[in-house]
């Protein structure tokens, strides 16, 4: 067993353990913190897969933006669902059954396909790889259209999020602007 395999096993155990805590712990903020740990474990796995750029993006986008957004939402909606309340649905065992069945099926499938035993071959040069990735995102013959679509999607999603989450009844500017109230 090589050092890389040991690192992989440690990162995998960290990721899976943190993920299990995310779905089982009853305190929502704790679940968000465990989610950060799981995402960090996935970042380690990206680094092991010779994709350092994706590891950095994982830290910046997932941990830096998405997890923080989730923590904000958990804190903003904290009052309604006290941590002592019931956190799982009545049919949680059905969900567990479905997840276990799917996992069993996937394991059988993965172990049966012969091509999946392939060794990786030589590691790609990370610098050339990153340059290649950057060029292909703006290359007319490669991925410029999906890239632009993704940016439009992000812009639309952010404007939509601002529109959806704005306060419900805003007073018209000419009206009784001096009185407090109207905030949700």
């Amino acid at each position, binding site marked *: 067993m090589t050092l890389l*395999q040991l690192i992989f096993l440690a990162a*995998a155990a960290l*990721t*899976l353990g943190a*993920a299990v805590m*995310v*779905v089982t712990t009853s305190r*929502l903020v704790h*679940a*968000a913190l465990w*989610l950060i740990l799981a995402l960090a474990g996935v970042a380690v796995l990206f680094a092991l*897969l010779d*994709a350092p750029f*994706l590891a950095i*993006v994982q830290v910046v*986008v*997932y941990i830096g*933006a*998405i997890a923080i*957004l*989730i923590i904000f*939402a958990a804190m*903003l*909606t904290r009052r*309604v*669902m006290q941590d002592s309340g*019931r*956190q*799982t*649905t009545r049919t949680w065992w*059905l*969900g567990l059954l*479905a*997840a276990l069945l*799917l*996992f069993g099926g*996937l394991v059988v499938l*993965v172990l049966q396909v012969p091509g*999946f*035993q*392939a*060794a*990786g*071959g030589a590691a*790609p040069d990370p610098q050339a*790889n990153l340059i290649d*990735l950057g060029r*292909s*995102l703006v290359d007319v013959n490669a*991925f410029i259209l*999906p890239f632009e679509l*993704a940016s439009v999607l*992000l812009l*639309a*999603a*952010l404007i*939509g999020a601002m529109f*959806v*989450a704005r306060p*419900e009844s805003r007073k018209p500017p000419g009206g009784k602007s001096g009185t407090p109230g109207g905030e949700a």
Partner: protein
Amino acid sequence: MIPLTWYLLLSAALLCIGIYGVLSRRNAVAILMGIELMLNAVNLNLVAFWRYLSPAVISGQVFAVMVFAVAASEAAVGLALIISIYRRRSTVVAEEIDLMKW
């Protein structure tokens, strides 16, 4: 060298944990966390396939970048919806948000 199968099994396990979270949690924010776990599992799968089966073609990484963008928009819109629902109905419990239930 780490076998590809290890990565696939790990991402299958991560996906199933996420599915369990989505199916069993009552809190809408916790459901979104399960979705994030599932998206991460998919990303891990994509990058592992890129690294082991076709490291010369960059498409695998581009796919992962697209998944990042979609995950960010999904989180923003989802959390905005949850906060909006919380404002109007004072609940984030998924089974109480049943206005459109037949």
